[in-house]
């Protein structure tokens, strides 16, 4: 009858969860346990990795926030939740937060607009359009480091071609962040283009033709048909670009090292700088702050997304 097999391969024939079979309850119960164990076994690698490198750090961050390590040797000092409130309310964190937000404001709207512009321009039937599409998506091939090198050569005050342009002057604290943001904006062009183009291609031609027959001019079509249908894609892109903005690190390290006068120190940069025992407590709190920020933003986006989707229908 039932051949003896390694538990991992036996897949019991069960699809329902209720009532006993009068004839063979024992057989079924043990094979359900086997199946559950098999299910858990398949999850072990992923769960272990995510546990050790995502959730365990969360615990450690909280621990570092509450217990400052001794600068020399082992041991730690309890500093308590007041440490958290102190750092989160302190200038350092507020500065980092504000700079991160500014960076976000520089990169996200520009990124969306550029992406939409380029995708609209390149979404048509022209000979050789694929070449332009290839060009627009090419920055996908650049890494943050490469993009930073490219823009170092353009905006660095000493050797950059446009290093002296006032608007993006890296040597002045009022404009340095803009210069750094340029790197991200340029790099994001490729991805935003690819995503918006895919969104445009998913809109059936018939809708555009119907709008034409209804007498809509090009701009009206854009405003009343294309953009509303692009809305889900743009929402997705918004989330992606915001996440990129929160993560910004390499351009800062390459171009300004956080200067001048800390005017380009985003939260991640500040956290990176605080890894030695003396300041890791502050770093941990700021990291938790960043986590909280991401959490809140994601939650907001999900609720707005849900509501939008329902209205859109």
């Amino acid at each position, binding site marked *: 009858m039932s051949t003896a097999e390694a538990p*991992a*391969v036996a897949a019991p024939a069960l699809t329902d969860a209720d009532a006993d079979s009068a004839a063979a309850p024992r057989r079924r119960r043990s094979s359900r346990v086997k199946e559950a164990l*098999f299910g858990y076994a398949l999850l072990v*690698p992923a769960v272990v990795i995510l546990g050790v490198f*995502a959730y365990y750090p969360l615990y450690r961050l909280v621990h570092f926030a509450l217990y400052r390590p001794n600068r020399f040797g082992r041991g730690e000092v309890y500093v308590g939740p007041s440490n958290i409130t102190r750092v989160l309310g302190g200038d350092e964190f507020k500065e980092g937060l504000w700079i991160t937000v500014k960076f976000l404001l520089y990169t996200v709207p520009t990124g969306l607009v550029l992406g939409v512009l380029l995708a609209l321009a390149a979404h048509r039937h022209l000979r050789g359009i694929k070449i332009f599409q290839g060009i627009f998506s*090419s920055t996908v091939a650049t890494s943050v480091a490469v993009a930073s090198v490219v823009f170092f050569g353009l905006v660095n005050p000493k050797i950059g071609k446009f290093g002296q342009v006032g608007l993006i002057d890296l040597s002045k604290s009022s404009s340095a962040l803009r210069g750094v943001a340029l790197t991200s904006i340029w790099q994001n062009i490729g991805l935003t283009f690819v995503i918006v183009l895919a969104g445009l291609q998913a809109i059936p031609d018939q809708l555009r033709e119907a709008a034409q027959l209804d007498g809509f001019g090009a701009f009206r079509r854009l405003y009343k048909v294309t953009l509303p249908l692009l809305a889900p894609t743009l929402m997705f892109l918004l989330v992606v670009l915001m996440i990129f903005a929160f*993560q910004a690190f390499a351009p800062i390290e390459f171009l300004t090292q956080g200067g001048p006068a800390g005017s380009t120190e985003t939260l991640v940069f500040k956290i990176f700088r*605080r*890894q030695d025992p003396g300041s890791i407590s502050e770093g941990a709190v700021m990291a938790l702050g960043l986590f909280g920020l*991401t959490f809140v933003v994601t939650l907001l986006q999900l609720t707005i997304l849900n509501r939008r989707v329902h209205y859109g229908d």
Partner: protein
Amino acid sequence: MATDAAVLPPDVRRRMLMGQAGWYVLLSGLSLLVLFPIWMTIVRAVSEPFVYIERGQPYHPVAFDWGVFGDAWREGNLGRSMLLTLAVTAIVTVAQLVTSVLAAYSFAYVRFPLKNVLFVLIVASLLLPIEVTLVANVRTIRELGWLDSVQGLSAPFLASAFGIFLIRQGFLGVPGELRDAARLDGFGHFAFMRRVAIPLNRPIIASFALITALGTWNQYLWPRAATTREKWETVQVALRSVSVQHPERFNVGVAAAILASLPILAMLIFFQKQIIRGLTAGAVKG
């Protein structure tokens, strides 16, 4: 689908061609946005550095120095760092594939309690990216003695919540009747996974692998934080040493950046379709 221009009356044709010309002009102009920095980079790479100091900043190459690529290779130790980065990329990509496929299969086809709770926990880990967990993970790696090592560079990325989510979606799309037929055919879980579930989802799995490889090769923050010695720098981290830290010989740095981009460019050209599919996986329904 462009109407055959030759068939139209001359003035309509002229208007249409002018319209098309207009688009070409616009598209070329927009291309400059993307291409200009690339062009300047190439210019910079192949020109001798003294040009910038003596003659200011030209828009075109001057005083070619093709040896700069060889210099970049040597000074940036690109041979070694590329090999290292390749190893890390391979390890992470394979690991993410294996862990994601196994976990996704479990969620899609195996019954066990607390499935939904576990899935939510896994997806929730997306809220804890490396930027947030950085200081703690560096500590952990250091305590394990894995600083400056291949393990240290790969460990935090051996699993991917995004991959699990994506591949589970694909598995759930396989018709239930196929699972029934496979059960009758005698396929246990591994046989079904190997012969049916994975082959039917080859496109999305391949795209995921490509995106992961791309992302790992291009990664900066973690390799920067997890290594202290020069010989353990990945390509991206090495770029900083060879470029930004020697602005007077920036042509070498820029040349190194160009070299560092070539593998990715090659991948993009060969696997364009799959990469685009992977990038747009969340954005467009259907």
